[in-house]
């Protein structure tokens, strides 16, 4: 029966080619535009580490200028920590299962042989980083805790860099030169790209590549390797000591801090711990503002950082209205078309087709238009995403269509077509055959 209805639907569409292609085109454009913005929105607001996002917490301590406006929520507090606070927390015996202190830096990689040197971003952190964030290893593994204490010259490198420097082989035990120093490779990371890159999501960096080099933070500070991310200061540096020392013990914020907390009790205990830490620091004259500490799990943190921008939300809203216009357009065209089919329907009814049969037959036609519109929409969404990718830098990891989005596109299109066609189909199945047959 369905194949017969399908044949009828195609025949009917061929009879009104202009109207039919207009409907498919309108639906396709609407679906294409909406799926483009929705895909961007969906991927931006995605959970970068679903199995652990509720146990990983970003830490904020309010060490800022007493003269700046009062703090009401996590959004009002600097998203980064001073180096000294991070170091103190790393050294302390806190209720957290694990903690990781980190910052973003960089160096020039000087390959052996004649290959030209090149610049790479580096994440300086602790051994705990890899286990906390479930970083997958291809060869070797994280450095051990002693390397953090001993400020060892060890490095974990990414697959891409390993391909470039060592032709993709197991490079564990080999050395890489960063600026003037040699670091021993202890592990090679497999492809790893949390999207958004939640652990350092400030400014426009939320969709940036993960670093290809990781070194112990203690070693990086020793060097010193300067921070490449955003550095924010409110108090003048102490001029009685060398600049680097003054910077490290300053109130400047430029490091990120994460804690792994597995139970609600642990969360509460950790929060208490932070509050007490700040109280202690107040004793020695730091933290002049009222006590404010915040911990946010991964998804809360992405909200605090405003990873999904207002522009993306505006685009999503407007493209939804665009889809509504396309559906309205289709309803109008379907209504016109189906009311014009009165004669044919009357004939089918007179030959014994029930109202239900007429209804479902026409619904199949509407559904066919929906499927065609959906397929066109997928093609247009693919083009749309390519356009978005070329318009924004740093969206490379973001824009791809997965099976779920493809299914959603066709589903949405059929739903839109059926919603658009329900009334016209119902109208046409209610027509009285007798009156229409007479005028033939």
């Amino acid at each position, binding site marked *: 029966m369905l194949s017969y209805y399908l044949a009828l639907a195609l025949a009917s569409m061929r009879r009104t080619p*202009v*109207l039919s292609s*207009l409907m498919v*085109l*309108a639906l396709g*454009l*609407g679906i294409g*535009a909406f799926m483009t913005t929705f895909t961007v929105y969906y991927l931006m607001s995605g959970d970068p580490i679903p199995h652990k996002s509720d146990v990983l917490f970003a830490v904020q301590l309010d060490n800022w*200028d007493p*003269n*700046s406006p009062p703090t009401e929520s996590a959004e009002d507090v600097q998203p980064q920590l001073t180096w000294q606070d991070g170091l103190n927390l790393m050294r302390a015996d806190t209720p957290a299962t694990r903690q990781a202190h980190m910052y973003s830096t960089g*160096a*020039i990689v*000087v390959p052996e042989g004649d290959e*030209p*040197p*090149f*610049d790479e971003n580096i994440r300086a952190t602790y051994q705990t980083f890899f286990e906390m964030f479930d970083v997958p290893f291809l060869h070797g593994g994280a450095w051990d805790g002693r390397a953090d204490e001993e400020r060892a010259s060890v490095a974990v490198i990414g697959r891409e860099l390993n391909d470039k420097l060592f032709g993709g082989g197991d490079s564990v035990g080999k050395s890489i030169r960063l*600026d*003037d120093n040699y670091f021993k490779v202890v592990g090679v990371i497999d492809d790893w790209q949390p999207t958004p890159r939640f652990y350092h999501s400030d400014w*426009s960096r939320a969709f940036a590549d993960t670093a290809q080099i990781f070194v112990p933070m203690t070693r990086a500070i020793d060097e*010193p*390797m*300067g921070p490449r991310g955003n550095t924010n200061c*409110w108090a*003048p*540096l102490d*001029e009685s000591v*060398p*600049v*680097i020392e003054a910077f490290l013990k300053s109130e400047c914020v430029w490091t990120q801090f994460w804690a792994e907390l597995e139970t609600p009790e642990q969360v509460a205990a950790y929060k208490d711990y932070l509050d007490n830490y700040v109280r202690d620091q107040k004793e020695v004259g730091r933290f002049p503002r009222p006590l404010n500490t915040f911990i946010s799990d991964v998804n809360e943190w992405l909200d605090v950082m405003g990873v999904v*921008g*207002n*522009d993306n*939300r*505006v*685009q999503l*809203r*407007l*493209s939804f*209205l*665009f889809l*509504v*216009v*396309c559906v*309205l*357009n289709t*309803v*109008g*065209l379907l*209504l*016109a*078309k189906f009311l*014009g089919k009165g004669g044919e329907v009357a004939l089918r009814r007179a030959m014994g087709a029930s109202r239900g049969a007429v209804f479902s037959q026409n619904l199949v036609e509407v559904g066919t238009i929906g499927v065609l519109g959906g397929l066109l929409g997928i093609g247009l969404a693919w083009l749309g995403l390519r*356009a*978005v990718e070329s*318009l*924004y*830098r740093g969206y490379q990891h973001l824009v791809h269509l997965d099976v779920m989005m493809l299914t959603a596109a066709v589903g949405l299109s059929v739903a839109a077509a059926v919603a658009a066609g329900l009334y016209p189909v119902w109208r046409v199945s209610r027509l009285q055959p007798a009156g229409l047959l007479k005028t033939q």
Partner: protein
Amino acid sequence: MNDFGPIFRTLLRNKLGALLIALQIALTLAVVTNAAYIIGQRADDVARPSGLDEANTAIFHTTLFDSNVDQQQLRRDDLDALRNLPGVVAAVPIQSVPISGSGWGEDYYTTPEMTSDESINFGMFMVDEHGLDTLDLEMLGGRNFRPEEMTLRSLESFESPRVTIVSQALADALFPDGDALGKTVYDEPNGEKPMEIIGIYDHMQNAWPHSDNVNRTALIPAYANFGGQMMYLVRAEPGQRDAVMAAGEAYLAKNRSRIVEHVRSYEEQKRRTYDGDIAMITLMSAVITVLAAVTGLGIVGLAWFSVTQRRKQIGTRRALGATRLDIVRYFMVENWMITSIGIVIGIVGAVTLNWFLDTEYSTGRVPLWYLPAGMVALWLLGQLAVLLPARRAASIPPALATRSV
């Protein structure tokens, strides 16, 4: 024009069809006015002058990685070479580039008593005496830096210059009475690090074009040696920029103890900085174009269909003496009525949508004149779209009335 009544009454017989088009037009008006407003706003932002000679300026960004090299000497050699390239007007070492998104924010205090919530925030640029020339700044008063006023900022030492040159906007913010020239400002609270304002230039934007105080900038005479980052800004004679970029890169790349991170025209930097705005402009323009096309084609489709449906009536009217023009006019008037209903609903829709977007995403309020502009555009769109089916209707021969009844 006494056929308004009959046309309107005919319209009422197909209320749903007419209402659907009207709604479509209403939504189109709402979306188009808001999208056009966003485009206008972003285009204004991008068009703001940064103060530099944008078409003729290039950025050279290098990183030194061999700690045995004398950074000060290397900078002197680089600048000598860059300044002597054919086609170069001026070259300057600088620690960050205006509007590049990465820069140095600083506060000046006008009195020793001032607290940090009263101090004036601005974007600071560390240059030498070639800064004014390279950045194409016009001095409104005062003098340039002198070579002996240069200071050094590195991880070992952090010298404070005694002089500064500020933008007109920063001068006005610091000293609203307009007498900033020659005054002393303090780089830190409690009267620490005094500097004399020795000059005022017309205009330059800071590193963050979306900040509130984008026009507040200042220059200080300093070399920045933090790590190996070394940046130069070069202004070329008109038409010489690309040649200067190529020659400059070739020179800088010869030294193997550093790498050239990028050589970029200022225009390219501007495109990168504003990529979000440019993307928004492109996407909103696409929305407007395609939406107008969908709505227009929808009108064509429906009118086409209605002409087919009414072939006999049209033939009869023609037989009864209606001219071709009458028939065309019928469809145009019908479309005008539907469009007008849509526009009335659409104005409410546009205002509501703007209110929503402004409250939720702070897009700003659409100026009122966007509404009449949108209305006229939609009337035109409707009339144009209906023209083709209307002409087809007019070509129906009167003889049709006598056939097959």
